């Protein structure tokens, strides 16, 4: 029966070519949309590596237009700022960091690439992992004693450690890709997905921020329930310490919300447009199938006369469109399978397989649904009328 279907489809190849092309494009469309969404969704369920609740970022910068907020060193020492901030009883922990080392800061400070992805680097203070709630899985975090070392201690993320060393015996290693630097790994944190829930596993290298290096970016952990109005107290106290300086405070929760918007809005728009476009394809397919069916009334009547049941006629029509769809799906599959070879997409194979399966499922579902109405019409054809159609 399948051979018979293929034969019919083949002999009508001209009429079917457009439909196969339509299916081919639809398949690619569903695949790309689904894989994007699944990639993001897959990331969403991964641990973030840090906590964003009750964390505020305090920028302390001169009132001067410059390239980057917090780009200059405040006239007061880091210790003085720490003391000032720790003076508030609702601040539980204080640390400082490079602007680019903070969570949800777009931008890149790249060192080298591993597996085609940039490895970011940022310097942070000894208290940073506590304040941000990083999860140390092996080795140790930076401490006062590191100031005296004649080499550079670094902490990296577990995903980076796996990419570089397979995740084993990381402590004490040097990173070969990072040439000419006298560094050694002293600790590994579970992850640090700096750009938030939808980003890929973090490839991040922490270096230790020396006492003198502070660039005016502070991260504080506040007691749960602290009102935003408390920011005004920080604002006033810091400004009093350095006249001519401005203070800018943002919560990580706010940064997270806008980063969500940045990811979800385009994804949502893409999803809506995809669904509408598929609906359009479904309409045109139904129309085409319906039209073909009315042109084939005689053939259907004949098949009924020769012993085909109504169900077998329906199966035949649905079968034909499934065969046509398969041509499109297989062509799409062959194309998509080239992507990993060309290193165009760095999805995991699981997401690949899942998206392909999903796309195939949607396409076959679509064509079956589209053949429902024409098929029902065909089933209602009475052989007598069909054969005396003339």
């Amino acid at each position, binding site marked *: 029966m399948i051979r018979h279907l293929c034969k019919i489809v083949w002999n009508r190849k001209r009429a079917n070519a457009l439909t196969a092309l*339509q299916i081919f494009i639809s398949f690619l469309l569903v695949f790309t949309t689904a894989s994007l969404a699944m990639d993001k969704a897959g990331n969403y369920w991964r641990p973030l590596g840090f906590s964003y609740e009750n964390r505020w970022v305090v920028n302390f910068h001169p009132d*001067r237009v410059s390239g980057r907020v917090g780009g200059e060193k405040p006239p007061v020492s880091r210790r003085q700022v720490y003391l000032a901030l720790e003076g508030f009883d609702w601040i539980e922990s204080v640390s400082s960091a490079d602007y680019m080392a903070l969570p949800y800061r777009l931008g890149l400070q790249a060192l080298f690439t591993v597996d085609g992805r940039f490895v970011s680097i940022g310097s942070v203070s000894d208290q940073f992992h506590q304040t941000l709630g990083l999860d140390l899985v092996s080795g140790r975090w930076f401490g006062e004693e590191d100031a005296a070392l004649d080499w550079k201690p670094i902490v990296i993320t577990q995903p980076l450690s796996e990419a570089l060393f397979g995740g084993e015996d990381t402590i004490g290693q040097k990173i070969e890709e990072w040439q000419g630097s006298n560094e050694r790994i002293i600790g590994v944190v579970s992850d640090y997905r700096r750009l938030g829930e939808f980003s890929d596993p973090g490839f991040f290298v922490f270096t230790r921020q020396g006492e003198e290096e502070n660039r005016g970016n502070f991260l504080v952990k506040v007691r749960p329930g602290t009102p935003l109005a408390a920011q005004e107290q920080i604002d006033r106290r810091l400004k009093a310490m350095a*006249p001519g300086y401005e203070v800018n405070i943002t919560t990580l929760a706010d940064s997270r919300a806008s980063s969500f918007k940045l990811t979800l809005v385009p994804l949502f728009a893409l999803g809506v447009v995809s669904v509408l*476009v598929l609906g359009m394809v479904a309409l*045109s397919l139904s129309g085409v199938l*319906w039209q073909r069916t009315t042109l084939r009334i005689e053939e259907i009547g004949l098949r009924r006369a020769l012993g085909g049941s109504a169900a077998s006629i329906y199966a035949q029509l649905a079968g034909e469109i499934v065969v046509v769809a398969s041509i499109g799906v297989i062509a799409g599959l062959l194309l998509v399978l080239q992507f990993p070879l060309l290193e165009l997409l760095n999805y995991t194979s699981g997401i690949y397989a899942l998206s392909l399966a999903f796309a195939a499922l949607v396409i076959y579902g679509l064509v079956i649904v589209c053949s429902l109405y024409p098929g029902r019409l065909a089933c209602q054809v009475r052989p007598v009328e069909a054969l005396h159609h003339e």
Partner: protein
Amino acid sequence: MLKNYIKMALKVLLRRKVFTCISLVTISFTLMVLMVMTALFDHVFGSFPPETRADRTLILQSIKGEKLGEKSYKVSPPSYAFLKRYVSSLTQAEKVSISEISWSTKATFRKGEKIESRFKHTDGVFWEILEFDFLEGRPYTVQEVEEGQRVAVINEATRRVFFGGDQAVGKHIELKDQAFRVVGVVSNVPAFRLMTFADIWVPISAQKTDDYLRYDSVFSGYKALILARSAAEIPLIKEEFADVLTRVEYPNPDQVNHISGGPTTLLEHTLDGIFSFSMLTSRGFIALVGVLILLFMLLPVVSLVNINTTRILERASEIGVRKAFGGSSLTLVGQFLVENVILTLLGGALGLVFTFLVLQMLGASDIVQYAEFHLNHRIFLYGLVMTLVFGLVSGVYPAWKMSRLHIVEALRRRKQ
């Protein structure tokens, strides 16, 4: 002849209601997507207040500085002093304005609520190049900026928050621990107008230090808007600036002794931005987005061609009869194309209505702050052109197929 075609086309379309409906939905939706995209593009890059002269405005907002012979380089916004020396003096330009590249944020606390206002430092020429829509008052002048007066122009939203919507001119607003006198109120500028967007605009001189005047670095955080006398003179300005770059004096030549780059139009600048963004994400991602857009455009066309071809086959016997009674292939093709274009025009009209609704929804959704999207004659014109192209493209293949139908075969199909 054409009148006849049109009459016939309408009759055929009315007779085949189901097909007409399917085609209309497909066409109107596709054109809606294209027109919404055009509208968004137009609102970001087109001439809209305050950037009504986008077609002859150049922007210089980053330069590449390096020390010759060394590998490292820095791409960063230029400093005020650099722009003042080397861009304000361009003779080919009609006007040059220097302003802060982005904006600063000021937090105000009111009854436990945090209000954030974005403010931008600009010079006086800023208001001459750009055409803001003033609701009350006036812009601050070049002279006021020179004198370092604490004056401000605020937007409508800020007036509502701070003054409850009452008249604001003459009143004071506190910024950077100082009182700024409001001299004007303008309509909100959407947040995607990065060149001009802010809630409050204040003079460049309203900084607590005069450091910005000193030429101690080529880099800082400023941009220049350069107004050409006409769009045609844009290349002249680019040339002149390239020439100026050869004569730059470097404040610290041990760090930077060579500069490259130059002013670009807003569109060029954005393309550059996308390019550097692609450095951040994987190349595959950008390729993927490109492929997606292509697929979105292609799929509706293929769908329409498919349904049009089928529609023709259905009418094979009609075509056979027409040919048998003397209709030439050419007149039949013409008839079908006219029919298709009429259908597409109807779909385009529907699409325009949908576009209007979608733009209203987008504006109301507050995805981009202060954004409002309107239909205008440009979008309508693009829409019309797209509609016609769409109608012709989706009609050509079926019409070609139709012209090749054999009379005998076509007539025989009637039986089946």
